[in-house]
């Protein structure tokens, strides 16, 4: 592939054709890198089949799909925030608090609710609003007040989790309306609705990132904030915007989780420590913690990988006391394999 040294002497149409060809090739390379984890997933599927005959059954895989859906939606939100060059630890608390507030406004006093008995539609609107407001607070304080994102969202994580616990005195809220649990619990045929919704979110956000002006702004701001500002990108708006989007997505994830377990526990989110899995999935999937790099295909692969590992460990009758150590080891292994397969893109 010779370098085009003197374009002014090269035939223009020939040059354009070459340019066209190359940009298509570069796009193809980017796609392959985004999918660097696919071979790893194939290996996991083979291992899973070997470990248990129950693995490759529709019901098991559908169960895995339902389990990873809630996590997946949060990973989309966190990936956007990481790609713009930020981080938000409090998504795990939003994941718990948003459905808790909604449930609290829907269930009777006897079930530890507020007694307002709001309708499920109103409940879901409240849930989305709570996510958006928390994201807005995070975004404004980090971007406008210039507080350190790590410390600020760490404090928010603890505060929000405390509110979640305090408002119901540590109780779990059951008897949620069917419309509220629908997204997390229902199936269309043999496929969980939550999996369909999560897949739709991944695809929509992936297309948005590639083909929408604001999606490209996210890469520009994450890649070089000052250059983006100098090129007229409304940097502050983009940064605050992804925090809001992250909050809303975390709330949706929380809605799915509440539906899946038919309740909102005061431990949902923060006390389950889901943020570690969120970051692990995003980073394994090639989202650079330095910002400006990554995509939805990789992030989705990261989520599926974590779900499959968890499932295989469950099916393999691994001792409960050892499951976390092995889980962590597999995450490290996946990170290293993605690094080897994906090259520089997955470096940080």
């Amino acid at each position, binding site marked *: *592939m010779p370098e085009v040294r003197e374009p002014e002497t090269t035939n223009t149409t020939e040059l354009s054709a070459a340019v066209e060809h190359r*940009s298509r090739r570069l796009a193809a390379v980017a796609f392959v890198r985004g999918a660097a984890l696919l071979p790893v997933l194939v290996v996991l599927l083979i291992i899973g089949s070997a470990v248990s005959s129950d693995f490759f059954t529709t019901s098991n895989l559908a169960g895995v799909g339902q389990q990873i859906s809630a996590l997946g939606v949060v990973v989309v939100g966190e990936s956007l925030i990481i790609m713009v060059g930020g981080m938000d630890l409090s998504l795990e608390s939003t994941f718990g608090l948003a459905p808790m507030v909604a449930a609290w406004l829907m269930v009777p006093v006897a079930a530890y609710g507020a007694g307002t008995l709001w309708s499920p539609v109103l409940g879901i609107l409240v849930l989305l609003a709570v996510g958006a407001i928390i994201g807005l607070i995070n975004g404004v304080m980090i971007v406008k007040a210039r507080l350190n994102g790590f410390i600020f969202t760490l404090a928010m994580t603890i505060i929000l989790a405390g509110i979640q616990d305090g408002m119901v005195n540590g109780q779990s809220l059951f008897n949620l309306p069917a419309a509220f649990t629908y997204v997390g619990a229902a199936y269309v045929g043999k496929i969980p609705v939550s999996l369909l919704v999560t897949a739709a979110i991944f695809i929509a956000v992936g297309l948005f990132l590639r083909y929408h*002006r604001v999606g490209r702004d996210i890469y520009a701001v994450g890649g070089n904030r000052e250059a983006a500002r100098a090129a007229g990108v409304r940097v502050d708006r983009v940064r605050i915007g992804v925090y809001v989007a992250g909050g809303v997505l975390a709330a949706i994830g929380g809605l799915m989780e509440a539906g899946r377990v038919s309740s909102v526990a005061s431990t949902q989110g923060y006390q389950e420590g889901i943020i570690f899995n969120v970051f692990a999935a995003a980073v394994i999937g090639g989202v650079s913690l330095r910002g400006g790099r990554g995509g939805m295909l990789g992030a989705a692969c990261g989520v599926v990988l974590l779900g499959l590992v968890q499932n295989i460990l469950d099916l393999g009758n691994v001792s409960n006391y050892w499951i976390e150590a092995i889980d962590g080891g597999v995450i490290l292994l996946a990170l290293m394999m993605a690094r080897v397969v994906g090259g520089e893109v997955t470096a940080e």
Partner: protein
Amino acid sequence: MSPQIHPVVEAIGVSKRFGSTQALLSVDTALRSGRCLGLMGRNGAGKSTLVSILCGLLGADAGEVRFDGEPAPPVGDIGAWRSRIATVFQHSMVVPQLTVAENMFLGDQPRHRGVVDWRSMRAETRRVLREWDFNVDPDVECVTLTVEQRQIVEIAGALARGTRILLLDEPTAALERDGVRRLFERVRALVAGGVAVLYISHHLEEVFEICHDVVVLRDGEVVLTAPTPTLTQDQLVSAMVGDVAAPVTAARAASPAARVPRPALSEERLAVSDIVATSTRGSLRGASLVVHAGERVGLTGLLGAGVATLGRVIVGAHGYQAGTIRFDGRPLPPGRPDAALAAGIGYIPEDRWLEGFVGLLGISENMTMSIARRLAGRLGILTPSARTLAARPLAEQLSVVSRGLGQPVAELSGGNQQKVTVARALASRPKLIVAITPTRGVDVASKELLLAALSDITRATGASLLLASDEFDDLQICDRVIVLVRGQVFTEFTEPPYDDEELIAATEGLVPVGRQ
């Protein structure tokens, strides 16, 4: 060349390839004790690659490096290389948060029973600094030093390890005139003391001033090696540029403003009045100026005079405390680059690595970043092919050399990165282009091309130009030149061609003879 006495360092048949690019092709060159060798070439000619190989950061694909006739240590043994050859890179390698003493011994601190021996580190630093006649406290943090002082810390530190070979990669890029003069005195003293120096520069006059010999690289090959006194500037330029020399000189001849009839002064495009702004790059203390439609205005001054700050204030990259900026009669809000862009101001920033482009993204995406809103449909959809379509004419006009418009800008050479930055400013069809030192770190041919492009485009589109630069050559394309001194407008030159001596006097705040 006497075969008995080996050069202190020599490259023999060195070749290096990066993917599809042949960076170096069997390069032979040698440094001798007590001589200063100038290394010249356009951006992308292979200078940086050669420097990296000579200081052991990169291995050659073929050929070898020898020190005093002995084979070089293995690549990667940084300590062994550093004891033989000292390198001062284009970008400061001083860690600002560390003290002078710590920087001087970075990675090589004197130790006493395994812990850092602070006392002897300070004493040694003081001794070295005294040798250099350089009066700073070893315990002061480098962040408080000027660029020139940091550079001295780097050079002194590099040489303090006892090496007699010094590589200087564009050492004057960030220095003021006086700093350059002092640097040259120091380099001359070192050379007189038997040090071998490799001096990399884009500035012909610097090479003629301090180099004994010159070696020119073009497309990775040595095209000229000769003692400096036997060469003329034109010979050197044509060696660097090769056969494209002719159109370049034509562009240069066409560019001076003197050849174009001055446009009749039309309406005010930009009116800046009494701007007060604090900045580490030089504060403004009530600066005012006017740029008319179609006018090309130069802005110059010493490093801290506020030239860059004024440019940045106008494009919204820097806020201000007092004063007003009106563009086409409407006020511009402070610190809002997007508003300035929307009003019709194109911005070519001073530091392209910081503000010029997003390295991970492709050429077409960077070039069209300023017009993404315009290119996108009502729903904000913007496909990569639409961007490529919009970027291609600009890439061709500025002769951007790349593997394709999707190539990440970080992979391009410095000159091509600068072209992308310029294209980004031109893409929005601005009514005023604000360019801050657009030719810094750009080779001779690309520099002429950039200036010619700016000149042509302003003439063709009727856009105004505000060119802030401390390179007096650049200012020759301007209709008038405003000189800032300590954050205020000091004087103005309205008759091109401008005389360097008069400009220098004015930047120093001296009223030139025959002017009042």
